[in-house]
């Protein structure tokens, strides 16, 4: 299962420890996490379920390419980091 780590600054607002989730894409893995932590969704995604403008995701060392559909493929060994972009703060 892919490993998903959330920025520590999110912990100040909402409980979101590192998680493991199954899925073929970033979207599928994140949705698996959100199913058990619905409030977290709104901190990471906007009303249209796209990545928030000032958030960033890194998958296996590379920035997310599809910020709207989150369709970047992942493997069971992937590491997904959900971070704050250096903007908007």
């Amino acid at each position, binding site marked *: 299962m892919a490993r998903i780590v959330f920025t520590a600054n999110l912990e100040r607002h909402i409980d979101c420890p590192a998680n493991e989730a199954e899925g073929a894409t970033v979207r599928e893995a994140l949705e698996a996490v959100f199913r058990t932590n619905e409030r977290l969704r709104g901190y990471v995604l906007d009303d*249209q379920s796209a990545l928030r403008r*000032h*958030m960033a995701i890194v998958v296996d060392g590379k920035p997310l390419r599809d910020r709207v559909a989150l369709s970047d493929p992942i493997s069971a060994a992937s590491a997904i980091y959900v971070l704050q972009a250096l903007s908007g*703060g």
Partner: protein
Amino acid sequence: MSDRLVVSTRKGLFTIERSGGAWRVAGADFLGDNVTLFFHDQRSGHDYAALNHGHFGAKLHRRTNGRWEEIAAPAYPPKPEGLIDRDGWGKDIPYSLINIFSLEAGGPDEDGFLWCGTIPGGLFHSRDHGETWELIRALWDHPKRQQWSGGGTDWPAIHSICVDPRDSAIVRIGISCGGVWETRDGGKTWACRADGMFAAFLPPEMSRDPNLQDPHCLVQSPSAPDRLWVQHHNGIFRSDDGSASWREIVDVPPSSFGFAVAVHPREPDTAWFAPAIKDERRIPVDGKLVVTRTRDGGQTFDVLREGLPQSHAYDVVYRHAMAIDESGDRLAFATTTGGLYLTEDQGDRWREISHTLPPAHAVRFAP
């Protein structure tokens, strides 16, 4: 009189309390976070705080029996595939909550009913104390909504909501930039009500279009509800017929530009403003922080400065950052440079409560 004042700032929500004749900072909530609005619902006793995190979006919190909890924030519906939805300047409108920009109670007969104005121009209501929110489709889907534009923000902002004290189904809202809109049936139908306003910054053929106006703040007299005041980008306007028509108030010293306006709870001719140099500079005239007051409906104004900084003051008072209590004697305002000032005699004399708060978005009195 209200002995509690709540200040929403860039770095937290501050409660100021009066004790022994002095006003002191009594506590802070959400310290370090950007609190954009506070609202106390007298019907239920709930407090509400709107936050806007730089990265994580706009959120809403409710305090019940002293405990804050995050509740649902208004959310925009899915944007239909292929829909082109642009503002008055041709920019694509995001179907996403950018900011919570106004939050008010429904009428006293509408327990749990709240109105919420947002950026990018959606008006929402809740029937359950903010547990769930519903977009007012009649306004969002109105074809004239696409003529609105941002004014000081990237997108249209619903900043003022006035529920008519005579009939809770009559609601007027102020939009930057979209004029004043009115519903007389609880939100089912809407009409623009800004005839008489003008916007000198627009081409002449557009300047008097009611739907393009930039009212910065709209308030309604509680004692004479057909009287409304607007601090507009272009000056001060007054309506005596429930927003059907507006006329400009002229010859206002030292400036008629500003953002905030407050009206006396029982004297519709008495109102206060916080002037600044129009409009690109947006600093107090001559570096002197003053409040203006009219007691005769805008024919004449007092320039109130006793107790306010009169040298190198560069404070701006945002549209939600001046408040009056139910007595009509106490007013307070907070500024972009962290000043908080209060009067107990309708503005004749002011006292500085703090000059070290974070930049202030909003001020409210609370019980």
